[in-house]
């Protein structure tokens, strides 16, 4: 069967689409950040899935271990997780400031106020 073997990839595709859809469709800025995080995490899963092989162990130099999973993508994703955390933190910090300045975190209300400004 093809589907079980590719299950991770299907999950990745679904998560990417869900995250992306939330970013586009939600007017609430915090929900947008949630969508963005889901979107990013989906990519982490993509990287981690591609390096795993059936029966692969951790890459330790030992005569008993024949199959290794590729550790490199895991390490790459550690970096990407850090980037994701920084992005989320910065986004939320901006939302706090936006709420101070506009009194709302709904995009349409912010747009209305901006239109009145100009």
């Amino acid at each position, binding site marked *: 069967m093809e589907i079980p073997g590719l299950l991770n990839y299907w999950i990745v595709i679904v998560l990417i689409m869900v995250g992306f859809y939330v970013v586009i469709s939600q007017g609430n800025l915090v929900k947008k950040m949630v969508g*963005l995080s889901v*979107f*990013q995490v989906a*990519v982490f899963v993509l*990287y981690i899935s591609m390096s795993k092989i059936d029966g692969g162990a951790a890459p330790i130099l030992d005569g008993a271990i024949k199959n290794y999973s590729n550790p490199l993508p895991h390490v790459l994703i550690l970096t990407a997780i850090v980037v994701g955390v920084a992005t989320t933190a*910065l*986004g939320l910090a*901006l*939302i706090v400031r936006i709420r101070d300045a506009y009194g709302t975190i709904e995009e349409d209300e912010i747009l209305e106020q901006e239109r009145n*400004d100009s």
Partner: protein
Amino acid sequence: MSALFSAHLPAIQVVVPLISAPLCVLFRRTGATWLIALIVSWTSFGISILLLEQVIANGPISYLLGSWAAPWGIEYKVDMLSAFVMLIITSIGSISMIFAPNSVNSEIPDDRIYLFYTMYLLTFSGLLGITITGDAFNLFVFLEISSLSSYVLISLGAERNALTAAFRYLILGTVGATFYIIGVGLMYQMTGTLNMVDLAQRLPAVAETRTILVALGFVTVGIGLKLGLFPVHVWLPNAYAYAPSVVTAFLSATATKVAVYTLLRIYFTVFGTKIFTALPIGEFLLLLSLIAILSMSAVAIFQKNAKRLLAYSSVAQVGYMVIGISMVTATGLTATILHLFNHAMIKGALFLVLAAVFFRIKSVKIEHMAGLGKVMPYSMAAFVLAGFSLVGVPLTVGFVSKWYLILGALEKGWWPVAALILISSLLAVIYFWKIVEVVYFKPRPQDAPLIHEAPLAMLIPMWVLVGANFYFGLDTDITVGSAKAAATLLIRGAP
């Protein structure tokens, strides 16, 4: 000592600004942090010149970080193109740091100024990192370093709209960067390598597979978001309009240029020219950028805020660069690379003048600029001369890059494209004239407060850039020479 120093220049170039950023947080004093930023910028400018000299003399430099051998460790690669782009970034950085203190002190609250310089240094090192690295994933990391810090820079703007502009840029910028790593991930899946040169060798074997074509699509859209390619440029006008003035000048002259550089790198160094036959990617880019140069120039005409007007003009100018890429010829790429440099000089000068205007009258709305030609004669003269270059009047750099672009179009027999480029230049005349008319032919209102010419610390940097516009318009040896050399290397697909 000096041999050791020159051997490690590529690492020093990135590490010095990166380490200076936390130093700024430790010092906290406005004067001290400015001095650090100034010294670091000029040091990097010096290193860029040394690197360019080394590349011209000995060919591309390959630097192994931590001495790990190339496809496994991260490799820094300096060739003609990256040395040239680094020269653009560092020269603009150095000049805007001389300009910065007056403008920054008046626009950003005192207790946040040290953060401005910290973030500037991080953006600076991120941009240099993107240019110098030879590793596709490392490029993503530097891309995020420069993007995250530039969101902060933009949000430091005085008006509250700066916050929403920064937030929108954060959302779209992150989507762009994530698209880029999806693309890189798919390429890694097929080739097992992240080193660009290594990728270039392994990709041809799998080039026709759907995975690689999808990867190409993701990377194109991701970088397209970063460079403000029409129609994913929507973050750009607000971000440029509401950011602090110096930030606008610095980012408009460097950030989109580095994104164009990334596109060139991925297309020509990693994928090679064959992708343009595998997918109609050239036609796709050509269509989008033609729409960009016409529609964005037209939209610029109707803007009331001078910074916003120039921001739309920037989207149009990015269109010119992408047209050069879509030609896939040596002349087209020469035009693109030339315009990277030339547009940095043009927009750097224009936005610095607007920063000086904001410093004096606290507004860059075009209606408020009435009569400034009389009270700020030197700044406004600089504005007009840089504007000539934007339009592409002969003797300026703007003319040189448009000349090569039209030459490239005619070489391919694309008469309509050449005509559209000329029409778009005429639109540039119209929107630029709108500002000039108000500045020189409208009287200053009676009740307007008395103001003076901008201080010398602002005039000198802007006139240096204006001077560069004319100097490199007349003496094209250095710029055209470097651009041609870089373009030939790219088109041959040499690493």
